[in-house]
């Protein structure tokens, strides 16, 4: 072992507070290759933060190559509200020369570069950062010994980080043991050896760079849970009483289907891996028709395939949940990048007038709650509901208050009660409530669910009057839903120069950008839309109170200069103050990109910002 001071590492003795600089939050970027277990360190840090009642947010890139390749994990932890994963890193760990070269630009001037002395030769003339060399590879090999080579480097680095940031070693060791506990004793022991060696490494040139987090400011009495967006969505579906589903693998949707495949049987349900996405949406609609509200999902290409069946769901008024984990498009596009370019497809993707509900979660916690809301709406309005999440949310880890499950769980039992003699599957004066097979109908006349235009009993019709009335029926129920939605509310100045409008995963960066814009003296507010179809009431009134309405989205400005939500809002509200801030680099918004974009647009439009 390289430990110069073994006594200190055992109990995780904290450094005297006087030596450590107080911190509110820190951004740590880990850059290496995917096989180095970088996600594992990030995951540990995120969960530690969650357990310590700190806020946390992570950001990772997974290489789209089959195995290996450069990979990063960025974790931001702190004691206030953490809204984005951070524009610039305070601390960069570089495992390789390429990690150093590609990611140094993400480090803020004055930040700390910690690099593996065995692999990286930094530029000695670069004085912008505090460069700290650590024998990450050889230190790990020496500590663990045996045949494991440099496996365990990630835990060595975790030890180093624990030391530098004065992290709770007892809690971290607990997490390591929980994580590897199911495996052989050797694995836990090796992990702890590597961790201790990293913790004990005498980072002397770091002496004046030790940090300590300010005490947490959280007031909630509920414990924090730490998980990624796809997991939150999965558990939300389960809480919502969804027990059946079907899908086909595609990144970054797959982890939802994989979790459902192993979780649902415990709850008496099942998930079918179908032959393709057309099959998957069809299995799901079969489940829904049989009385069990079902879920299907995919990303870009798979959503395109589901569109015909989605139109059937609209026409037959079949409840269904469809999750789209958006990625860069079109076509196979950028499978491991983020984009919000499927909004118009979600609203209008099938042929014909096919109105359906579209929702978008704003952060990881919201993935859980929006799944519950989607299920409630699908059942109450007998309609397909699309949830537009995205690649960034799918893998981002956040800590949030544990949900009050007892108050949220929904009973999944199908309603097979006998229907009265006047039962109609498609009544013109009411919202459809299907009678699943197995339920008796008093009249002895059984309903046919259909994708042909139909009369109230489900018989096909070519009647112009009926097509007009039935089209209205399918539209009006979404208007009825709109009337029940909470009115749109802006956060920030009640009136002023700029209203930032966003949807989906950009919520955090937009909020941070808003804070900066307001701090610089501009009167501004944020309006974040979770309900994209139908839109909530009251938007007109909010829009009227700001000189500029800037819609921030990760998609293209299109032929006419407006992103997809901006296009929709301009069409709906015909308000010329609606402008558009878009980008198409496949990455989440940096706060500075939004602030600069707003400044630029404001200057162009002669509005102070």
């Amino acid at each position, binding site marked *: 072992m390289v430990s110069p001071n073994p006594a200190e590492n055992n109990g995780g003795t904290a450094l005297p507070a006087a030596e450590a600089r107080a911190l509110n939050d820190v951004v740590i970027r880990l850059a290496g290759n995917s096989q180095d277990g970088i996600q594992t360190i990030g995951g540990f840090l995120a969960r530690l933060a969650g357990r310590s009642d700190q806020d946390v947010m992570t950001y990772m890139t997974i290489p789209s190559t089959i195995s290996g390749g450069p990979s990063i994990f960025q974790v931001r932890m702190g004691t206030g509200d953490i809204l984005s994963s951070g524009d610039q890193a305070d601390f960069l760990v570089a495992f390789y020369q390429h990690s150093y070269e590609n990611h140094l630009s993400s480090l803020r001037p004055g930040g700390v570069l910690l690099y593996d002395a065995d692999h990286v030769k930094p530029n000695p003339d670069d004085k912008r950062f505090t460069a700290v060399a650590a024998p990450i590879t050889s230190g790990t090999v020496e500590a663990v010994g045996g045949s494991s080579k440099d496996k365990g480097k990630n835990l060595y680095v975790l030890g180093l980080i624990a030391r530098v940031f004065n992290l709770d070693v007892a809690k971290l060791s607990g997490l390591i043991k929980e994580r590897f506990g199911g495996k052989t004793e050797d694995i836990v022991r090796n992990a702890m050896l590597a961790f201790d060696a990293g913790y004990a490494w005498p980072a002397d040139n770091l002496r004046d760079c030790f940090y300590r987090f300010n005490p947490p400011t959280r007031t909630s009495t509920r414990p924090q*849970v730490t998980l990624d967006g796809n997991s939150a969505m999965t558990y939300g579906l389960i809480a919502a009483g969804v027990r059946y589903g079907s899908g086909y693998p595609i990144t970054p949707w797959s982890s939802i289907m994989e979790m459902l495949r192993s979780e649902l*049987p415990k709850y008496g349900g099942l998930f079918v891996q179908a032959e393709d996405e057309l099959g998957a949406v069809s299995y799901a*609609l079969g*489940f829904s028709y049989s009385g069990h509200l*079902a879920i299907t999902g995919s990303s870009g290409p798979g959503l395109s395939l589901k569109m015909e069946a989605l139109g*059937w769901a609209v026409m037959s008024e079949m409840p269904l949940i469809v999750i789209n984990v958006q990625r860069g498009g079109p076509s196979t596009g950028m499978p491991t990048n983020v984009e919000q370019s499927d909004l118009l497809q979600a609203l209008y993707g099938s042929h014909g007038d096919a109105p359906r509900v579209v929702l978008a979660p704003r952060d990881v916690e919201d993935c859980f709650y929006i799944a519950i809301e989607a299920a409630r709406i699908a059942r109450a309005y007998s309609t397909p509901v699309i949830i537009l999440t995205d690649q960034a949310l799918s893998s981002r880890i956040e800590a949030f208050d*544990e949900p009050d499950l007892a108050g949220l769980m929904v009973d999944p039992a199908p309603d097979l009660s006998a229907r009265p003699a006047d039962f109609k599957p498609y009544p013109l004066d009411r919202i459809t409530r299907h009678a699943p097979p197995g339920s008796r109908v008093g009249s002895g006349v059984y309903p046919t669910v259909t994708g042909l235009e139909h009369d109230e009993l489900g018989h096909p019709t070519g009647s112009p009057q009926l097509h007009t009335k039935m089209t209205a029926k399918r539209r009006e129920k979404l208007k009825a839903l709109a009337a029940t939605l909470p009115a749109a509310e802006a956060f920030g100045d009640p009136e002023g120069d700029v209203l930032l409008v966003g949807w989906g995963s950009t919520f955090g960066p937009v909020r941070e950008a808003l804070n900066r814009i307001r701090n610089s003296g501009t009167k501004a507010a944020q309006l974040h839309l979770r309900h994209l179809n139908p839109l909530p009431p009251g938007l007109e009134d909010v829009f009227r109170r700001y000189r500029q309405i800037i819609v921030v989205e990760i998609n293209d400005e299109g032929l006419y200069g407006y992103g997809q939500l901006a296009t929709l809002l301009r069409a709906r509200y015909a308000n010329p103050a609606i402008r558009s801030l878009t980008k198409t680099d496949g990455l989440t918004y940096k706060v500075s990109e939004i602030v600069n974009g707003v400044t630029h647009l404001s200057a162009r439009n002669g509005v102070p910002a």
Partner: protein
Amino acid sequence: MSAPEILPPALPATDRAPLTKKALTADHPTWCPGCGDFAVLHCYYRALEKLNYPHEKIVTMAGIGCSSRFPYFVNTHGGHYIHGRSLPFSAGVSLGRDDLHVFVFGGDGDGFSIGGNHLDHVARKNPRLTYVIMDNFVYGLTKKQTSPTSPIGFKTKTDPTGAFDQPINPMRKLVDSGATFIARSHATQVNHMTEMIMRAAQHDGFSVIEILSECVEFYPGAFDTSVPRKGGTFGLIQEKKNDGTPEDATRHDTTDEVAAYRLASEPWPGLFGVFLDKKRPTKNQLEANLIAKARERTKGASDLQLLQSTFAKLR
């Protein structure tokens, strides 16, 4: 194996009246007069009368095509889905609700062309349902285009000089797909059709029947070679009776896939009857086993307790 005698199953222990054709009849069919599909509908009524399932537990599904209009003419729960995809939909119904009797109807284009891949994959999963393909060797609803079973030389609007793409052999495709009950019948043979539908319905797994059903509008006379009245032969498969007689050695073993494949390769018009009748665990059963095992491990915890324990691990 001998063909099981067709006995009406025991009446369910209820006071309900037996299911009648009258109760099962819905809209008057919109098919062209003389269309083979009328006879299939008639046999479906007859089979359901004999099977006498509780009325509300019967589901009649279809895709899109002339033949797929079926559900409108049957008074049961049911649905008219989209072109080619009715099998995964119906498999979802069966897996979601093991208490139901699910029947699916469709044409050759619906089943073998646009739905061909679904057919293969649903068949190998072996859900409990019965699929009837009304094969008329042509696209009827869209008015005479080439179908995947149209024979070479058949003139259609998309092959005005005669079809030249190799047609599929439905029976061989079905044997290869892993379907566990496969039969072939003819719309002019009412008793045979009824018997096939009943045996398929009583099969525990994925059962499929190809019924040659003439489109009098766009392919009249397509199946005359197997209509005795018109000088053809309706050749029946002789199923093994296991009676120890020397003749039995040459009869067809319906559990033998290779033999079924060989029968399926007989020259046109081929043979009729049961090609395959095998036991293999159904997906319904295998999924139920998975649930039972998972439940055993969770030791009767409620849904709420299960999810709470998951969240406790995320703290």
